[in-house]
Protein backbone atom coordinates (compact mmCIF):
# COMPACT_ATOMS: atom_id res chain seq x y z
CA UNK A 1 0.00 0.00 0.00
CA UNK A 2 1.25 3.47 -0.82
CA UNK A 3 1.51 6.37 1.62
CA UNK A 4 -2.01 7.28 2.74
CA UNK A 5 -3.53 10.22 4.54
CA UNK A 6 -6.90 9.85 6.28
CA UNK A 7 -8.68 12.99 7.41
CA UNK A 8 -12.06 14.36 8.31
CA UNK A 9 -13.98 16.76 6.14
CA UNK A 10 -16.28 19.06 8.11
CA UNK A 11 -19.81 19.41 6.79
CA UNK A 12 -20.40 22.52 4.67
CA UNK A 13 -22.36 25.28 6.34
CA UNK A 14 -26.08 24.88 5.87
CA UNK A 15 -25.73 21.53 4.17
CA UNK A 16 -26.22 17.94 5.22
CA UNK A 17 -23.57 15.22 5.32
CA UNK A 18 -24.83 13.74 2.09
CA UNK A 19 -24.78 17.09 0.29
CA UNK A 20 -21.20 17.77 1.37
CA UNK A 21 -20.14 14.34 0.17
CA UNK A 22 -21.76 15.11 -3.18
CA UNK A 23 -19.95 18.45 -3.39
CA UNK A 24 -16.64 16.71 -2.83
CA UNK A 25 -17.25 13.89 -5.27
CA UNK A 26 -18.38 16.35 -7.94
CA UNK A 27 -15.13 18.27 -7.47
CA UNK A 28 -13.18 15.05 -7.87
CA UNK A 29 -15.06 14.12 -11.02
CA UNK A 30 -14.38 17.57 -12.50
CA UNK A 31 -10.69 17.05 -11.78
CA UNK A 32 -10.91 13.95 -13.95
CA UNK A 33 -11.05 11.18 -11.33
CA UNK A 34 -12.73 7.92 -12.33
CA UNK A 35 -15.23 6.17 -10.11
CA UNK A 36 -14.01 2.69 -9.23
CA UNK A 37 -16.43 0.88 -7.02
CA UNK A 38 -17.12 1.35 -3.34
CA UNK A 39 -15.26 0.87 -0.11
CA UNK A 40 -16.00 0.23 3.52
CA UNK A 41 -13.89 0.47 6.67
CA UNK A 42 -15.47 -0.63 9.93
CA UNK A 43 -14.41 -0.74 13.53
CA UNK A 44 -15.71 -2.69 16.52
CA UNK A 45 -14.54 -1.84 20.03
CA UNK A 46 -13.85 -4.40 22.74
CA UNK A 47 -13.37 -3.71 26.39
CA UNK A 48 -11.02 -5.95 28.37
CA UNK A 49 -13.28 -7.07 31.20
CA UNK A 50 -11.51 -5.42 34.15
CA UNK A 51 -12.62 -8.22 36.43
CA UNK A 52 -10.41 -10.68 34.56
CA UNK A 53 -7.31 -9.10 36.03
CA UNK A 54 -6.37 -9.52 39.65
CA UNK A 55 -7.60 -12.25 41.97
CA UNK A 56 -11.14 -13.19 42.92
CA UNK A 57 -13.31 -10.48 44.36
CA UNK A 58 -10.79 -7.71 43.88
CA UNK A 59 -10.83 -5.47 40.84
CA UNK A 60 -7.30 -4.90 39.67
CA UNK A 61 -6.22 -1.30 39.53
CA UNK A 62 -3.20 -2.16 37.48
CA UNK A 63 -2.59 -0.05 34.41
CA UNK A 64 -4.07 -2.73 32.19
CA UNK A 65 -7.59 -2.49 33.56
CA UNK A 66 -10.15 -1.40 31.01
CA UNK A 67 -7.98 -1.29 27.90
CA UNK A 68 -9.78 -0.82 24.62
CA UNK A 69 -9.10 -3.11 21.70
CA UNK A 70 -10.26 -2.20 18.22
CA UNK A 71 -11.02 -4.83 15.59
CA UNK A 72 -11.24 -3.33 12.13
CA UNK A 73 -11.85 -4.43 8.58
CA UNK A 74 -10.96 -2.69 5.32
CA UNK A 75 -12.64 -3.65 2.06
CA UNK A 76 -9.32 -2.98 0.33
CA UNK A 77 -8.02 -6.10 2.11
CA UNK A 78 -11.09 -8.35 2.20
CA UNK A 79 -9.33 -11.39 3.64
CA UNK A 80 -7.71 -9.51 6.51
CA UNK A 81 -8.66 -8.32 9.92
CA UNK A 82 -6.79 -5.64 11.86
CA UNK A 83 -6.69 -5.64 15.64
CA UNK A 84 -5.13 -2.76 17.51
CA UNK A 85 -4.65 -1.03 20.81
CA UNK A 86 -4.36 2.73 21.06
CA UNK A 87 -0.61 3.52 21.22
CA UNK A 88 -0.02 -0.20 21.01
CA UNK A 89 0.75 -2.84 18.43
CA UNK A 90 -1.48 -3.43 15.40
CA UNK A 91 -1.94 -7.07 14.51
CA UNK A 92 -2.77 -8.04 10.95
CA UNK A 93 -4.56 -11.40 10.82
CA UNK A 94 -6.91 -13.30 8.54
CA UNK A 95 -10.68 -13.19 8.96
CA UNK A 96 -10.70 -16.16 11.35
CA UNK A 97 -9.68 -13.62 13.98
CA UNK A 98 -13.35 -12.63 14.16
CA UNK A 99 -14.21 -16.23 15.03
CA UNK A 100 -11.58 -16.12 17.77
CA UNK A 101 -13.15 -12.96 19.22
CA UNK A 102 -16.44 -14.85 19.53
CA UNK A 103 -14.59 -17.54 21.54
CA UNK A 104 -13.04 -14.85 23.71
CA UNK A 105 -16.36 -13.24 24.59
CA UNK A 106 -15.92 -14.15 28.23
CA UNK A 107 -12.78 -12.05 28.42
CA UNK A 108 -13.46 -9.27 25.93
CA UNK A 109 -16.83 -7.68 25.78
CA UNK A 110 -18.07 -5.65 22.86
CA UNK A 111 -18.67 -2.08 23.94
CA UNK A 112 -22.32 -1.16 23.54
CA UNK A 113 -23.31 0.48 20.25
CA UNK A 114 -19.67 0.97 19.41
CA UNK A 115 -19.67 -0.25 15.83
CA UNK A 116 -18.66 2.59 13.58
CA UNK A 117 -18.04 2.44 9.85
CA UNK A 118 -17.37 4.59 6.84
CA UNK A 119 -18.78 3.75 3.42
CA UNK A 120 -18.45 5.51 0.13
CA UNK A 121 -17.00 5.61 -3.36
CA UNK A 122 -13.49 4.99 -4.59
CA UNK A 123 -11.98 7.33 -7.13
CA UNK A 124 -8.83 6.73 -9.13
CA UNK A 125 -6.97 9.82 -10.34
CA UNK A 126 -3.66 8.87 -11.97
CA UNK A 127 -1.53 7.53 -9.12
CA UNK A 128 -3.91 8.71 -6.41
CA UNK A 129 -6.70 6.64 -4.93
CA UNK A 130 -9.29 8.80 -3.20
CA UNK A 131 -12.03 7.44 -0.97
CA UNK A 132 -14.76 9.73 0.30
CA UNK A 133 -16.99 8.07 2.87
CA UNK A 134 -19.86 8.81 5.19
CA UNK A 135 -18.98 7.86 8.76
CA UNK A 136 -21.98 6.31 10.48
CA UNK A 137 -22.77 4.84 13.84
CA UNK A 138 -25.80 2.66 13.31
CA UNK A 139 -28.32 4.56 11.21
CA UNK A 140 -27.00 8.06 11.91
CA UNK A 141 -24.41 9.75 9.74
CA UNK A 142 -21.85 11.44 11.95
CA UNK A 143 -19.20 12.82 9.61
CA UNK A 144 -17.16 12.50 6.44
CA UNK A 145 -13.87 10.70 5.99
CA UNK A 146 -11.45 11.38 3.17
CA UNK A 147 -8.65 8.95 2.42
CA UNK A 148 -6.01 9.69 -0.21
CA UNK A 149 -3.37 7.15 -1.16
CA UNK A 150 -0.37 7.85 -3.34
CA UNK A 151 0.32 4.39 -4.75
CA UNK A 152 3.89 4.56 -6.06
CA UNK A 153 5.59 5.61 -2.84
CA UNK A 154 5.90 3.85 0.52
CA UNK A 155 8.16 6.33 2.28
CA UNK A 156 6.09 9.07 3.86
CA UNK A 157 8.78 11.70 4.06
CA UNK A 158 9.49 11.38 0.33
CA UNK A 159 6.01 12.15 -0.94
CA UNK A 160 4.20 14.13 1.75
CA UNK A 161 4.60 17.45 -0.08
CA UNK A 162 3.13 15.94 -3.26
CA UNK A 163 0.22 14.44 -1.32
CA UNK A 164 -0.35 17.77 0.42
CA UNK A 165 -0.50 19.61 -2.90
CA UNK A 166 -3.04 17.13 -4.26
CA UNK A 167 -5.12 17.35 -1.08
CA UNK A 168 -5.19 21.13 -1.31
CA UNK A 169 -6.46 20.96 -4.89
CA UNK A 170 -9.81 19.55 -3.83
CA UNK A 171 -10.04 20.01 -0.04
CA UNK A 172 -8.93 23.61 -0.08
CA UNK A 173 -8.81 25.08 3.41
CA UNK A 174 -9.77 21.77 5.02
CA UNK A 175 -6.46 20.17 4.11
CA UNK A 176 -5.10 18.29 7.12
CA UNK A 177 -1.65 18.40 8.68
CA UNK A 178 0.77 15.49 8.28
CA UNK A 179 -0.65 12.43 10.10
CA UNK A 180 1.10 11.48 13.34
CA UNK A 181 1.73 7.92 12.10
CA UNK A 182 4.27 9.21 9.60
CA UNK A 183 6.71 9.82 12.41
CA UNK A 184 6.19 6.43 14.05
CA UNK A 185 8.25 4.11 11.90
CA UNK A 186 11.97 4.25 12.33
CA UNK A 187 12.51 2.79 8.88
CA UNK A 188 9.91 5.11 7.40
CA UNK A 189 8.14 2.41 5.37
CA UNK A 190 4.39 2.92 5.28
CA UNK A 191 2.01 -0.02 5.61
CA UNK A 192 -1.70 -0.88 5.82
CA UNK A 193 -1.52 -0.96 9.64
CA UNK A 194 -0.69 2.78 9.59
CA UNK A 195 -3.87 3.47 7.60
CA UNK A 196 -5.93 1.53 10.14
CA UNK A 197 -4.38 3.52 12.99
CA UNK A 198 -5.41 6.73 11.21
CA UNK A 199 -8.97 5.45 10.80
CA UNK A 200 -9.08 4.42 14.46
CA UNK A 201 -8.02 7.94 15.48
CA UNK A 202 -10.59 9.47 13.12
CA UNK A 203 -13.39 7.25 14.43
CA UNK A 204 -12.50 8.10 18.03
CA UNK A 205 -12.54 11.80 17.22
CA UNK A 206 -15.94 11.50 15.53
CA UNK A 207 -17.35 9.43 18.41
CA UNK A 208 -16.45 12.16 20.85
CA UNK A 209 -18.10 14.86 18.77
CA UNK A 210 -21.64 15.36 19.95
CA UNK A 211 -23.01 16.54 16.64
CA UNK A 212 -21.91 16.73 13.06
CA UNK A 213 -19.21 19.41 12.84
CA UNK A 214 -19.83 22.37 10.59
CA UNK A 215 -17.25 24.33 8.68
CA UNK A 216 -16.93 27.97 9.57
CA UNK A 217 -17.41 29.73 12.88
CA UNK A 218 -20.33 28.79 15.05
Amino acid at each position, binding site marked *: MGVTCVSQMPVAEGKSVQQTVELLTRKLEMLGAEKQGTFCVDC*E*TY*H*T*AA*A*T*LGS*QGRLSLAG*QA*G*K*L*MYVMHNSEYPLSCF*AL*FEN*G*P*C*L*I*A*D*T*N*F*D*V*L*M*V*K*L*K*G*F*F*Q*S*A*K*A*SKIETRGTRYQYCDFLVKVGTVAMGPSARGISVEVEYGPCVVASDCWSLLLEFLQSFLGSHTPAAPAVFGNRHDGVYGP*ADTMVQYMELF*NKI*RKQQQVPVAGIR
Partner: protein
Amino acid sequence: MEAPPVTMMPVTGGTVNMMEYLLQGSVLDHSLESLIHRLRGLCDNMEPETFLDHEMVFLLKGQQASPFVLRARRSMDRAGAPWHLRYLGQPEMGDKNRHALVRNCVDIATSENLTDFLMEMGFRMDHEFVAKGHLFRKGIMKIMVYKIFRILVPGNTDSTEALSLSYLVELSVVAPGGQDMVSDDMRNFAEQLKPLVHLEKIDPKRLM
Protein backbone atom coordinates in the same frame (compact mmCIF):
# COMPACT_ATOMS: atom_id res chain seq x y z
CA MET B 1 -10.93 9.37 27.97
CA GLU B 2 -13.94 7.64 29.46
CA ALA B 3 -14.67 4.12 28.34
CA PRO B 4 -17.90 3.53 26.42
CA PRO B 5 -20.62 1.58 28.28
CA VAL B 6 -20.05 -2.19 28.27
CA THR B 7 -22.62 -4.80 27.57
CA MET B 8 -22.60 -8.59 27.80
CA MET B 9 -24.04 -8.94 24.29
CA PRO B 10 -21.67 -11.07 22.26
CA VAL B 11 -20.70 -10.31 18.72
CA THR B 12 -21.76 -13.25 16.64
CA GLY B 13 -19.49 -14.71 14.04
CA GLY B 14 -21.20 -16.47 11.20
CA THR B 15 -18.62 -18.92 10.04
CA VAL B 16 -18.73 -22.68 10.24
CA ASN B 17 -17.10 -24.09 13.34
CA MET B 18 -14.18 -26.20 12.22
CA MET B 19 -13.12 -29.23 14.22
CA GLU B 20 -9.78 -30.94 14.47
CA TYR B 21 -9.84 -34.74 14.34
CA LEU B 22 -6.71 -36.18 15.92
CA LEU B 23 -4.92 -39.50 16.39
CA GLN B 24 -1.54 -39.72 18.08
CA GLY B 25 1.21 -42.21 18.64
CA SER B 26 4.97 -42.35 18.93
CA VAL B 27 8.00 -44.22 17.62
CA LEU B 28 11.47 -44.63 19.09
CA ASP B 29 14.30 -42.84 17.28
CA HIS B 30 15.69 -46.00 15.72
CA SER B 31 12.33 -46.81 14.05
CA LEU B 32 12.02 -43.44 12.42
CA GLU B 33 13.50 -44.38 9.04
CA SER B 34 11.16 -47.32 8.47
CA LEU B 35 8.15 -45.20 9.38
CA ILE B 36 9.20 -42.39 7.03
CA HIS B 37 9.75 -44.96 4.30
CA ARG B 38 6.25 -46.37 4.70
CA LEU B 39 4.67 -42.93 4.89
CA ARG B 40 6.41 -41.90 1.70
CA GLY B 41 4.82 -44.89 0.02
CA LEU B 42 1.31 -44.37 1.43
CA CYS B 43 1.01 -40.61 1.22
CA ASP B 44 0.57 -38.16 -1.62
CA ASN B 45 3.49 -37.85 -3.94
CA MET B 46 5.36 -34.70 -3.04
CA GLU B 47 8.81 -33.51 -2.15
CA PRO B 48 9.68 -34.66 1.36
CA GLU B 49 8.84 -31.73 3.58
CA THR B 50 10.62 -30.99 6.84
CA PHE B 51 9.81 -28.30 9.31
CA LEU B 52 11.40 -26.52 12.23
CA ASP B 53 8.87 -24.60 14.29
CA HIS B 54 8.94 -22.66 17.53
CA GLU B 55 5.70 -22.80 19.46
CA MET B 56 4.72 -20.68 22.44
CA VAL B 57 1.66 -21.42 24.53
CA PHE B 58 -0.11 -18.41 26.06
CA LEU B 59 -2.67 -18.36 28.85
CA LEU B 60 -5.25 -15.74 29.76
CA LYS B 61 -6.46 -16.11 33.31
CA GLY B 62 -9.93 -14.86 33.98
CA GLN B 63 -12.87 -15.34 36.26
CA GLN B 64 -13.47 -18.76 34.79
CA ALA B 65 -11.70 -21.66 36.48
CA SER B 66 -9.80 -22.69 33.40
CA PRO B 67 -7.60 -20.20 31.59
CA PHE B 68 -7.97 -19.51 27.88
CA VAL B 69 -5.16 -21.16 25.93
CA LEU B 70 -3.76 -19.89 22.64
CA ARG B 71 -0.84 -21.36 20.70
CA ALA B 72 1.46 -19.13 18.67
CA ARG B 73 3.69 -20.92 16.23
CA ARG B 74 6.37 -19.58 13.93
CA SER B 75 8.53 -21.23 11.33
CA MET B 76 12.25 -21.03 12.04
CA ASP B 77 13.32 -22.26 8.62
CA ARG B 78 10.93 -20.48 6.28
CA ALA B 79 11.60 -16.78 6.21
CA GLY B 80 8.56 -14.62 5.57
CA ALA B 81 5.98 -17.23 6.52
CA PRO B 82 3.16 -15.79 8.63
CA TRP B 83 2.85 -16.70 12.29
CA HIS B 84 0.16 -19.25 13.10
CA LEU B 85 -2.23 -18.63 15.97
CA ARG B 86 -4.32 -21.59 17.06
CA TYR B 87 -7.18 -22.08 19.46
CA LEU B 88 -8.12 -25.63 20.45
CA GLY B 89 -11.29 -26.29 22.41
CA GLN B 90 -12.08 -29.06 24.84
CA PRO B 91 -12.33 -32.54 23.30
CA GLU B 92 -15.88 -33.40 22.40
CA MET B 93 -17.19 -35.98 24.78
CA GLY B 94 -19.52 -37.85 22.59
CA ASP B 95 -19.62 -41.13 20.89
CA LYS B 96 -17.20 -43.51 22.57
CA ASN B 97 -17.13 -45.36 19.26
CA ARG B 98 -15.75 -42.37 17.43
CA HIS B 99 -12.25 -43.25 16.42
CA ALA B 100 -10.55 -39.90 16.66
CA LEU B 101 -10.29 -37.13 19.24
CA VAL B 102 -12.49 -34.27 18.09
CA ARG B 103 -12.12 -30.69 19.27
CA ASN B 104 -13.06 -27.25 18.06
CA CYS B 105 -10.24 -25.50 16.30
CA VAL B 106 -9.64 -21.97 15.00
CA ASP B 107 -6.54 -21.30 12.89
CA ILE B 108 -5.42 -17.76 12.18
CA ALA B 109 -2.46 -16.51 10.16
CA THR B 110 -1.01 -13.34 11.63
CA SER B 111 1.73 -10.76 11.28
CA GLU B 112 5.00 -11.02 13.19
CA ASN B 113 4.06 -8.87 16.16
CA LEU B 114 1.77 -11.60 17.49
CA THR B 115 3.52 -12.13 20.82
CA ASP B 116 3.56 -8.38 21.60
CA PHE B 117 -0.11 -8.22 20.75
CA LEU B 118 -1.04 -11.21 22.90
CA MET B 119 0.83 -9.69 25.87
CA GLU B 120 -1.08 -6.43 25.32
CA MET B 121 -4.33 -8.42 25.40
CA GLY B 122 -3.33 -9.79 28.79
CA PHE B 123 -2.00 -13.21 27.79
CA ARG B 124 1.15 -14.54 29.48
CA MET B 125 3.45 -17.20 28.06
CA ASP B 126 3.13 -20.48 29.88
CA HIS B 127 5.70 -22.58 28.07
CA GLU B 128 7.47 -22.93 24.74
CA PHE B 129 9.18 -25.63 22.72
CA VAL B 130 10.76 -26.33 19.36
CA ALA B 131 9.31 -28.97 17.04
CA LYS B 132 11.46 -30.48 14.31
CA GLY B 133 10.32 -33.13 11.92
CA HIS B 134 8.60 -34.29 8.76
CA LEU B 135 5.27 -33.48 7.20
CA PHE B 136 3.18 -35.72 4.93
CA ARG B 137 -0.25 -35.34 3.35
CA LYS B 138 -2.86 -37.76 2.13
CA GLY B 139 -5.88 -35.94 0.78
CA ILE B 140 -7.15 -33.82 3.65
CA MET B 141 -5.18 -35.81 6.22
CA LYS B 142 -1.98 -34.37 7.61
CA ILE B 143 0.66 -36.61 9.12
CA MET B 144 3.42 -35.10 11.23
CA VAL B 145 6.38 -37.00 12.62
CA TYR B 146 8.37 -34.72 14.87
CA LYS B 147 10.61 -34.43 17.87
CA ILE B 148 9.99 -31.97 20.66
CA PHE B 149 12.89 -29.98 22.05
CA ARG B 150 12.92 -28.23 25.38
CA ILE B 151 14.23 -24.66 25.29
CA LEU B 152 16.90 -24.31 27.96
CA VAL B 153 17.06 -20.53 28.12
CA PRO B 154 13.67 -18.81 27.68
CA GLY B 155 13.52 -17.06 24.34
CA ASN B 156 16.76 -18.59 23.04
CA THR B 157 15.87 -21.15 20.40
CA ASP B 158 19.50 -22.05 19.71
CA SER B 159 20.11 -23.97 22.90
CA THR B 160 17.63 -26.82 22.96
CA GLU B 161 17.55 -30.32 24.32
CA ALA B 162 15.45 -33.22 23.06
CA LEU B 163 12.62 -34.07 25.40
CA SER B 164 12.73 -37.81 24.73
CA LEU B 165 14.30 -40.53 22.60
CA SER B 166 11.22 -40.75 20.42
CA TYR B 167 9.24 -39.00 17.76
CA LEU B 168 5.63 -37.94 18.16
CA VAL B 169 3.37 -39.05 15.30
CA GLU B 170 0.16 -37.12 14.69
CA LEU B 171 -2.56 -37.78 12.15
CA SER B 172 -4.97 -34.88 11.93
CA VAL B 173 -7.74 -33.44 9.79
CA VAL B 174 -9.42 -30.05 10.08
CA ALA B 175 -12.99 -30.31 8.82
CA PRO B 176 -16.48 -29.11 9.71
CA GLY B 177 -18.05 -30.85 12.68
CA GLY B 178 -20.20 -33.96 12.60
CA GLN B 179 -18.36 -35.75 9.82
CA ASP B 180 -17.92 -39.25 11.11
CA MET B 181 -16.58 -40.39 7.74
CA VAL B 182 -13.44 -38.41 8.52
CA SER B 183 -12.63 -40.37 11.64
CA ASP B 184 -13.37 -43.64 9.81
CA ASP B 185 -10.93 -42.72 7.04
CA MET B 186 -8.35 -41.79 9.64
CA ARG B 187 -8.77 -45.11 11.41
CA ASN B 188 -8.36 -46.97 8.12
CA PHE B 189 -5.18 -45.08 7.36
CA ALA B 190 -3.86 -45.69 10.86
CA GLU B 191 -4.39 -49.45 10.33
CA GLN B 192 -1.94 -49.30 7.43
CA LEU B 193 0.76 -47.92 9.68
CA LYS B 194 0.58 -50.81 12.13
CA PRO B 195 2.74 -52.34 13.53
CA LEU B 196 5.31 -49.57 12.94
CA VAL B 197 3.24 -47.12 14.99
CA HIS B 198 -0.04 -47.43 16.85
CA LEU B 199 -2.08 -44.30 16.41
CA GLU B 200 -4.87 -43.90 18.89
CA LYS B 201 -7.25 -41.43 20.39
CA ILE B 202 -5.51 -40.11 23.47
CA ASP B 203 -7.66 -38.18 25.89
CA PRO B 204 -5.43 -35.41 27.34
CA LYS B 205 -7.39 -35.41 30.61
CA ARG B 206 -6.36 -38.97 31.37
CA LEU B 207 -2.73 -37.92 31.28
CA MET B 208 -3.15 -35.22 33.96
